[in-house]
């Protein structure tokens, strides 16, 4: 169980550090991977051994997805009031994100397996991993794409809003949640409570829409771009 202990210690240490160094690049998951992977390679420990000891954490991922229903429920009154703009933004954003992400990847020579891992990059990690597996991708690679898309919004999001002149909390929040899922939502909540509420809403709705649409959309994108 030494590697389970290592995961826990390194993760919570990274999270503790990220509270003091307030920078989006200091992401606990990212730090954790950057320490554990070189460590395993250096000590010649195969991934299978590591995973076997950490499988209980993995079992908890599915209940965690179910738990996302709770913040969605808490936003129920917001959804009722502005459902048109929320629904349109999330639907457009989800489809556009899948088509442009997978389309660019295919045009640059990525194979279908890699493309299937890139396609769900803008939704929260457990959903992205489930979606990529469903359409023939690799969950571990999907998780990394999710981090890249998340860091994009967390690092560049607010500078871009200022540059383009976007001010309404609903616009900032929905955009952050649609593009950069949980990482963007954390940043939005830090900037403004209302931004954060709309962002978490977009995070969950886009996750659901992407998982519903991806299996139908992916073969279509493959046909068009290859």
């Amino acid at each position: 169980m030494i590697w389970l202990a290592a995961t826990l210690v390194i993760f919570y240490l990274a999270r503790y550090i990220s509270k003091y160094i307030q920078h989006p690049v200091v992401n606990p998951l990212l730090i954790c991977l950057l320490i554990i992977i070189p460590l395993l390679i250096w000590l010649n420990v195969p991934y299978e051994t590591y995973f076997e000891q950490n499988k209980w954490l993995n079992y908890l991922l599915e209940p965690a997805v179910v738990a996302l229903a709770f913040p969605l429920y808490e936003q129920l009154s917001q959804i009722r009031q502005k459902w048109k703009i929320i629904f349109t933004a999330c639907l457009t954003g989800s489809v556009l994100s899948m088509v442009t992400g997978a389309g660019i990847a295919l045009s640059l020579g990525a194979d279908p397996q890699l493309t299937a891992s890139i396609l769900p990059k803008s939704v929260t990690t457990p959903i992205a991993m489930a979606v990529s597996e469903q359409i023939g991708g690799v969950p571990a690679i999907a998780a990394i794409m999710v981090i890249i898309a998340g860091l994009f919004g967390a690092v560049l999001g607010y500078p871009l809003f200022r540059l383009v002149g976007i001010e309404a909390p609903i616009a900032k929040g929905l955009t952050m949640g649609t593009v950069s899922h949980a990482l963007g939502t954390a940043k939005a909540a830090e900037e403004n409570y209302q931004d954060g509420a709309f962002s978490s809403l977009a995070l969950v709705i886009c996750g659901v829409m992407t998982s519903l649409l991806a299996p139908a959309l992916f073969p279509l994108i493959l046909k068009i771009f290859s």
Partner: protein
Amino acid sequence: MAYLRSFSIILVCLFIGKAIQHVTQLAIPGSIIGMLLLFVVLSMGLIPACWAKESCHLLIRHMALLFVPVGVGLMNYLDLLSANTLPILLSTIGSSLIVFLVIGVATHYKEK
């Protein structure tokens, strides 16, 4: 007790979600169906929100930790990643920028 009750509710939703997925052979993950189920149950007031609250909050607060075991799986794909650095970076960042600008500008003008 609050944790036990809320975690049981989550597991029941997950189990039913997986069962529905298995029977209907839908392409949607069972966990997503379970989430929609819990959302419907809460929205309709079939169970009080406080029954589900504790474990939901706990799981969401520590969610990032649960990604670590699968994320480390990357070590088996380092060759694939380094061989495809350009398509990976351009597609993830380029696509994020496009969606960001389109949704940001569109919702901004819609709200005005």
